[in-house]
């Protein structure tokens, strides 16, 4: 099976370490959420994947072969790019050029997506609005049909309808071609149900790399009157707390013991966004 492996990938810019010995493996059939705060190193990770930058140390390997300046490997990988390669072209022509570079490019799908998102084929790529610039890039990424597809902030500037459309198209596309999908995003709540695996990068270091289920079973939420919450959580390990007047919410590590929950306390599941905030809020 295809495998994309990061081996101790480290990236330094002067005395700033953007990535610090990151090791992980990506496989087809999964939708990974690549999460991290601003400046955590997500984009740097994408850039060493897509041959835009060479890692200072370590390497990214596709089935054991370095992806750096490796055309054959790069044919298997597509990253939604920051810039566009053909800014002065019109959308239709731009798609044609991408299809020449990408052997698996599905032009029919690309045109169908343009129609669904109402992206004019005649529009100039460089004069697209923020939302449509994102839409153009995600259409290119999806239609490239690469075994490793990286979406970088795929809903940036998209209105609610277009975000909804993207998530549906993504699931439909994934059902037809269950490749490796990586979504790098800050909108965790919105896409958490799409993901089956979580990768959290914090300050350049790999913090979490596990199935979503494992992440969500790391803890639970207890809320109620502050005194009762404090009594209940005494001696327990916490991810963090939040106060609202006399009410308190605690994010507790471990599994809840339903029997012991006293009256007036509400115990609920952790959601990914809360957990992420608590973990990276240091």
């Amino acid at each position: 099976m295809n495998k994309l492996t990061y081996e101790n990938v480290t990236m330094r810019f002067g005395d700033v370490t953007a990535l610090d010995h990151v090791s992980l493996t990506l496989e087809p059939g999964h939708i990974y959420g690549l999460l991290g705060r601003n400046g955590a190193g997500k984009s740097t990770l994408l850039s060493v994947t897509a041959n835009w930058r060479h890692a200072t140390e370590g390497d990214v390997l596709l089935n054991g072969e370095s992806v750096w300046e490796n055309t054959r490997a790069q044919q298997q990988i597509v990253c939604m790019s920051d810039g566009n390669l053909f800014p002065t072209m019109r959308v239709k022509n731009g798609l044609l050029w991408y299809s020449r570079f990408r052997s698996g490019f599905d032009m029919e799908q690309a045109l169908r997506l343009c129609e669904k998102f109402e992206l004019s084929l005649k529009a100039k790529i460089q004069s697209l609005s923020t939302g449509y610039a994102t839409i153009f890039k995600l259409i290119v990424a999806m239609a490239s049909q690469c075994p490793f597809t990286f979406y970088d902030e795929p809903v940036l500037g998209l209105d609610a309808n277009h975000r909804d459309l993207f998530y549906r198209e993504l699931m439909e596309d994934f059902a037809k071609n269950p490749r490796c999908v990586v979504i790098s995003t800050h909108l965790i709540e919105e896409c958490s149900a799409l993901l089956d695996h979580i990768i959290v990068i914090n300050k350049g270091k790999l913090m979490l790399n596990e199935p979503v289920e494992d992440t969500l079973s790391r803890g639970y939420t207890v809320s109620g009157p502050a005194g009762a919450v404090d009594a209940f959580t005494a001696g327990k390990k916490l991810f963090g707390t939040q106060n609202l007047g006399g009410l308190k919410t605690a994010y507790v590590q471990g599994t809840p013991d339903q029997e012991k929950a006293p009256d007036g306390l509400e115990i609920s599941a952790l959601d990914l966004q809360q957990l992420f905030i608590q973990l990276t809020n240091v």
Partner: protein
Amino acid sequence: MHFDGEKPIYLQVAEQIEDAILTEAFPEKSQIPSTTEISVTYKINPATALKGINLLVESGAVYKKRGLGMFVAQGAKKKIMEKRKQDFYDRYIVSLLEEAGKLGISRQELAAMLGGEEENHE
């Protein structure tokens, strides 16, 4: 279908299909939506949708016809009703009494409310 954060999504998928079987939106012997349809419509990971459907397969509410899809089993509605009746006390009565306690509603008042509800239906 709307998912809340209280329960794992796969459980909610299973419950909502059960609801549809109870209301006969999915009659017995009829086909239920595929994993892909559920995944696309509700924007959830296909593995989550599959896990939900598998719960129903285990409980015998739905069964797989090879190459055709998943179908509601005969007698599924009755089975689900029995199971739900068992859960009814824990899920509704306990929380009803808790909320009534918070609001200072007495048992008599509660009984009157329940009686009144019945009269309204008649």
